[in-house]
């Protein structure tokens, strides 16, 4: 958020450097059931972001001291692979990854019916294969599909998308340049059936109007993304659901 550039991020016609208008999100791609061992898995692309998510569980909680006697805990680990960013990232969790892991775990705990599995753990792993701003949103989007793929009971499938501001314009789904040189970044995740917010962060400088406008666009974008999440599961499994009993 603190870089400076002579680059024009939004031109006089309101077009961004990748040709989008302010309200357009990048292309989405969602696939379910992409790994063998994991109980559930998903692959998501949002623009140039490429993200893999896998779920194991419910299973015995490790470490044991984190067990909750009344419900399952959701343990999410978000990780960026070394080659996912232009400046190679040293392997291992950094403070940013730990914070992101925490807020994604919390978002998912709200949605998963954890009371059905006391003392257990639902382990979610998010690997960023390629990053281009908005990885935590892509990660949570993939994690939600992976949870449904694993058959874990949840209230709804959660989509996440970010709004932001660059060159004074409020924009939907910032790309890398807009994130680096822009003026605000607002990732958000919602429960589509109720529009409740389960993840929200903001950094930068926005007026109330700008923020409200950003949220409105992001929520609409989330609903679109949600359709793709559902579609990914249906494409993967609807043949198995069709008529077949004897």
């Amino acid at each position, binding site marked *: 958020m603190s870089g400076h550039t002579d680059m024009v991020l939004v031109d006089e016609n309101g077009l961004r450097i990748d040709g989008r208008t302010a309200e357009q999100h990048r292309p989405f791609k969602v696939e379910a059931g992409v*790994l*063998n*061992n*994991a109980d559930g*898995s998903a692959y998501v692309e949002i623009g*140039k972001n*490429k993200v*893999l*998510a*896998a779920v*194991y569980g419910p*299973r*015995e909680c*490790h470490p044991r001291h984190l067990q909750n006697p009344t419900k399952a805990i959701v343990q999410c*680990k978000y*990780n960026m*692979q*070394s*080659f*996912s*960013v*232009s400046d*190679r990232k040293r*392997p*291992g969790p950094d403070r940013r990854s730990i914070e992101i892991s925490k807020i994604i775990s919390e978002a998912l705990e709200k949605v998963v019916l954890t009371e059905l599995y006391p003392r257990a753990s639902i*382990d979610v*792993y998010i*690997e960023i*294969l*390629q*990053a*281009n701003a908005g990885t935590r949103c892509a990660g949570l989007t993939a994690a939600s599909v992976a949870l449904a793929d694993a058959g874990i009971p949840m209230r709804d499938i959660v989509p996440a998308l970010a709004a932001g501001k660059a060159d004074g314009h409020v924009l939907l789904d910032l790309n890398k340049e807009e994130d680096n040189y822009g003026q605000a970044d607002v990732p958000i995740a919602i429960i589509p059936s109720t529009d409740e917010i389960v993840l929200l962060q903001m950094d930068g400088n926005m007026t109330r109007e700008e923020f409200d406008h950003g949220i409105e666009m992001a929520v609409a974008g989330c609903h679109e993304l949600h359709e793709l999440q559902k579609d990914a599961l249906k494409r993967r499994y609807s043949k198995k659901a069709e008529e077949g009993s004897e």
Partner: protein
Amino acid sequence: MTEMMSEIKRDHMMKMLEDGKRLDGRGVTDVREIKVITDVIESADGSARVKMGKTEVIAGVKIIPGTPFPDTPNIGVLTTGAELIPMAHPTFESGPPGEDAIELARVVDRGIRESGMVDVEALCIVPGEEVWMCFVDIYALDYDGNLFDAANLAAVCALKSATIPGEQYGKGENKPLPITCTPISITEVKIGNTLIVDPNFDEEQISTARLTVTTDDVGNFRAMQKGGCGSITLDELSLCLDRAVEKGAEIRKIIG
């Protein structure tokens, strides 16, 4: 719960192996189906996603200008790392690479380094001051046995398709990473008295010893690693070496 192999399965597998048969129908020297896709990660300077049967690995190459080692001032640097990330198997835990990941990285590195696959002498930018540093990072995504060969293949394919990003650093034009050969590793495990090539997870679980042999394009040996708690006889070693050359050539042909 983590999967504990039942004695029924163990007994059944061992019985079949006495007749030279494997549960998945393969012969003792058959390698599983190999699928390779390169250039999957734009942010990497080279990348490959490899599947051997159900084992899946991704490798990425990042090439960065850096300082050479003092004793080799005009030679580029090659570094290999590997992680057994938890999504790949229910028994993999989070955390810094453990001994399995470290061994995996070092064995893959040995094959690449000792074969001279990357022409490190051609990676000098300013003699004595600046050279290209080649980082290879490997991640297991789905583990069904034989990470050694899958990881080696992914690293090799990522390097073969890598580009030195000269333009990004103002150090000349982009050009392909100079490659001289294609080292291929072949891993076998010993179960009872039978040696089988490209073990899957279950086969690894009941094996006693493991041998990984890396050959180059002319069939010379570049690296070897014996693992596991069992032992191998000299005859068994000889058999493994023969198979490594033969199977190595087959795989080299598949990846082109």
